[in-house]
């Protein structure tokens, strides 16, 4: 695949150089320049739609913001192409980041509707604010593209556009193949798991919105210079649909898909002209056909085909990794203490004044019948629920008010009762995501692929391979996680959690659904994890496993802690026996008498 990408970039560069040399007339070149502009929008939108899984139907609004900002800066202040476009990128980027805020509260269709509303608002502000935007007549007299006061020839402007598209494509490609890109995919596929690995989902979404907005803003400014005239009717809802379609048609999440999609949809009206009045109908029909025939887009479908025809190796060589012990070295196991932890849901008290202490380095088991409050306990400690009363301390640090990803970054990792893997990512990528919070390269480093970035990525990969070997999955490293058998999925979750280099690991019912043999293996694995200097809090039903592996057992019943002691002592505790098997009943007593 890597060679294919290099070939793709070479091909793109060749086309961008060849077109102006061969284009017959000015109209042809202008149309191609329009494609370059749309390509920039589509490439940026791909980061939002393809990687982060968020739908924006308001991209025309950001495009308009860029176009008007660029035009106004050029007309009123006489700024040149680059400065005006930077201004346009800033304004659009700010609005884009603001647009990300609603995604904190709403998802899916709701978010799509917010973006639609945003696009309509921009369009109508452009109509209403006549003194600035010229109202419905629009802005005329936008100066020709110029740089440092020197006017650019048509070919020089073309070069600016071509270089911008090339580097925008390269930048988003590099972004995708960095920790940021993996975090985006992770947030899209399981936000819950991503947060538990120390990824701030809101920050990642804001980044994605900002990238999509900045590119749309730059494209808008270029458009204003190319067209020399802009008006509100160029930036309508149907344009937003078209931008989204470019990404979907070409192949969301693929590197060159959006460029291809932009190309097709720029030239499509030329082709559809022969349908005359059926033009719009044909456009709708095409959109429908794409959704049914090529749900992965053109390049997405081709990519799948390629992967099937020339499958890569299924696993990786464990020798490429560094041992798990080395990855997890140099940290102290953490203690965890809850004091009077109480959680109420409406009138129901799921957890009542639970005080538990997990000593550093121990394997602490939490058991209890169904509905005892175990899951509530785990979810409160890891920050998904807020306690009604009481608090949690990790190594003396109060966790009150901290977000899930903040708690994860303090060194608390967890697995999930219903496994929460990133199903469409490979096994290895799942573990790589776990290393996100340890990346010290910033966004520029990732986009420019600096030596520091390469070094860290290599180290992250080596650590992940070692962890896969630790849980025995290196042979399946390149498979998609959703195709793993259930038992392996559980192990992958453990490896992924270990990749955050935790000091305390929460295992939420890791034996549920496993075979006896798998449970035996799990027992060994839990011991080894504790041996690597990680405190383990094990939530389990499986009594044999707990008695074999735990140093301390805490028993929950009806939200209250009824025992907390060494396994043998708990086993013979009358209250525990009563909770599990029921107490002596009056009827049985009478029968016995």
């Amino acid at each position, binding site marked *: 695949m890597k060679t294919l990408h290099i070939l793709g970039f070479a091909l793109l560069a060749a086309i961008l150089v060849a077109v102006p040399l061969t284009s017959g007339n000015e109209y042809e070149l202008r149309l191609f320049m329009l494609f370059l502009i749309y390509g920039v929008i589509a490439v940026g939108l791909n980061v939002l*739609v393809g990687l982060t*899984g968020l*739908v924006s*139907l308001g991209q025309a609004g950001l495009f308009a913001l860029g176009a008007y900002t660029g035009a106004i800066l050029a007309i009123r202040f006489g700024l040149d192409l680059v400065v005006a476009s930077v201004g346009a990128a800033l304004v659009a980027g700010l609005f884009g980041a603001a647009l990300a*805020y*609603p995604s904190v*509260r*709403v998802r*899916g*269709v*709701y978010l*799509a*509707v*917010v973006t*639609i*509303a*945003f696009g*309509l*608002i921009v*369009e*109508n*502000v452009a*109509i*209403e604010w006549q003194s600035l935007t010229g109202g419905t007549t629009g802005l005329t007299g936008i100066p020709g593209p110029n740089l440092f006061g020197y006017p650019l020839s048509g070919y020089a402007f073309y070069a600016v556009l071509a270089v911008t598209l090339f580097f925008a494509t390269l930048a988003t490609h590099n972004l995708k193949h960095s920790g940021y890109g993996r975090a985006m995919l992770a947030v899209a596929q399981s936000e*819950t798991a991503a947060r538990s690995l120390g990824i701030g989902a809101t920050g990642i979404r804001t980044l994605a919105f900002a990238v999509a907005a900045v590119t749309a803003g730059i494209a808008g400014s270029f458009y204003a210079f190319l067209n020399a005239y802009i008006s509100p009717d160029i930036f309508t*809802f*149907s344009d937003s*649909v078209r931008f*989204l*379609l470019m990404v*979907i048609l070409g192949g969301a999440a693929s590197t060159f898909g959006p460029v291809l999609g932009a190309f097709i949809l720029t030239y499509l009206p030329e082709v559809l002209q022969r349908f005359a*009045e*059926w*033009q*719009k*109908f044909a*456009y*709708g*029909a095409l*959109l*429908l056909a794409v*959704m*049914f025939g090529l*749900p992965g887009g053109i390049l997405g479908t081709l990519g799948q085909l390629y992967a099937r025809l020339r499958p890569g190796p299924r696993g990786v060589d464990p020798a490429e990794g560094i041992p798990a012990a080395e990855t997890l070295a140099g940290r102290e196991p953490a203690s965890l203490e809850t004091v009077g932890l109480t959680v109420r849901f409406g009138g129901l008290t799921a957890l009542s004044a639970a005080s538990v202490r997990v000593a550093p380095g121990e394997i602490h088991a939490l058991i209890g019948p169904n509905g005892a409050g175990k*899951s509530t306990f785990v*979810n409160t400690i890891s920050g*998904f*629920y807020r306690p009604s009363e009481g608090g949690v301390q990790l190594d003396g640090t109060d966790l009150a008010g901290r977000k899930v990803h903040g708690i994860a970054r303090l060194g608390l990792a967890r697995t*999930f009762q219903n496994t929460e893997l990133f199903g469409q990512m490979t096994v290895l990528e799942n573990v790589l995501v776990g290393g996100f919070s340890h990346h010290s390269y910033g966004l520029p480093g990732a986009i420019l692929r600096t030596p520091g970035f390469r070094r860290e990525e290599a180290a992250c990969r080596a650590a992940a391979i070692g962890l896969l070997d630790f849980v025995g999955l290196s042979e399946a490293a390149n498979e998609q996680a959703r195709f793993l058998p259930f038992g392996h999925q559980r192990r992958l979750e453990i490896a992924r959690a270990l990749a955050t280099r935790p000091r305390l690991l929460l295992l939420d019912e890791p034996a549920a659904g496993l075979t006896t043999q798998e449970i035996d293996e799990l027992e060994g694995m839990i011991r080894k994890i504790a041996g690597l200097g990680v405190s383990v809090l094990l939530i389990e039903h499986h009594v044999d496993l707990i008695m074999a592996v735990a140093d301390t057992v805490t028993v929950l019943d009806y939200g209250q802690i009824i025992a907390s002691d060494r396994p043998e002592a708990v086993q013979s505790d009358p209250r525990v026996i009563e909770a599990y098997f029921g107490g002596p009943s009056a009827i049985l007593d009478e029968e016995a008498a």
Partner: protein
Amino acid sequence: MTTALQYTLSGLAIGGIYALVALGFHIMWSAAKAVNFAHGDTLMIGAVLAVMGVDAGLPLPLACLLAILGGALFGVVLERFAVRPFIGANASIGWMLTTIAVGIMAESLATMQFGGFSRPLPSPGVARAISIFGAGVYPQELVIPAVAVLTMIALHVMQRHTLVGRAMQAVAHNRQAAALMGIDVDRIVMFSFGLAALLGAGAGVLVAPVIQASASMGVLLGLKGFAVAIIGGITSGPGVVLAGLAFGVMEKFVEGYISTAAREIVGFSAMILVLLAFPQGLFGRREIFKV
């Protein structure tokens, strides 16, 4: 004072249309957790078919009835071929784009058949304006909000007291459990989309005499209907109707005192703000998040 009353009355009329469209979104969302983004075009189909029916010499009531049935059929067919294949996929982008695509096709077909211009639907409801405390309104405009409220009540009764209504609620709550109880989920969803489209086309027939019928009338009305559904809380029938009426009145005031463009700015900004403050809408039920 008269101006305020005038704005209120005509606001209630257009608000009644939003309410009917939003009720459709409520019904579809409840059944399928998916909606028809071409729902505005269902309204357009109702209006345009009614005008074409009258053109063809049909008596007005028959033309209206056929137009509404035509709209409902559109809803049923669209659900079967554009929505159902994509339900259950974790991203909603599939049915969003397919329904938008069908909307584009419907609009383009309508433009070809109907022409690119606007025409009114003749109706006794707009034959003569009546005066209420100096504010002039058509009887048609008074009928629209009444129809919206009555529809809401009827829908409520149906959801509570009929077998199909209860089945709709069961499907809304849990598709799989409903299917296990012997409910034909696909048919319930199809019925819901048909019913929603029926209301949408009905709204189109009702509004066609007041604003003119045209092939492009659906998009903005549909988007506003969706905005209203979100403001009111898409899970609450009474909520969306109330929000629709209020939205209509607000629009008329903004339009009257400022401008048409300001109307859209205020309306859609209101939607975003409501959504930020109340992610479930003003009257919607909260969806519980479970790890």
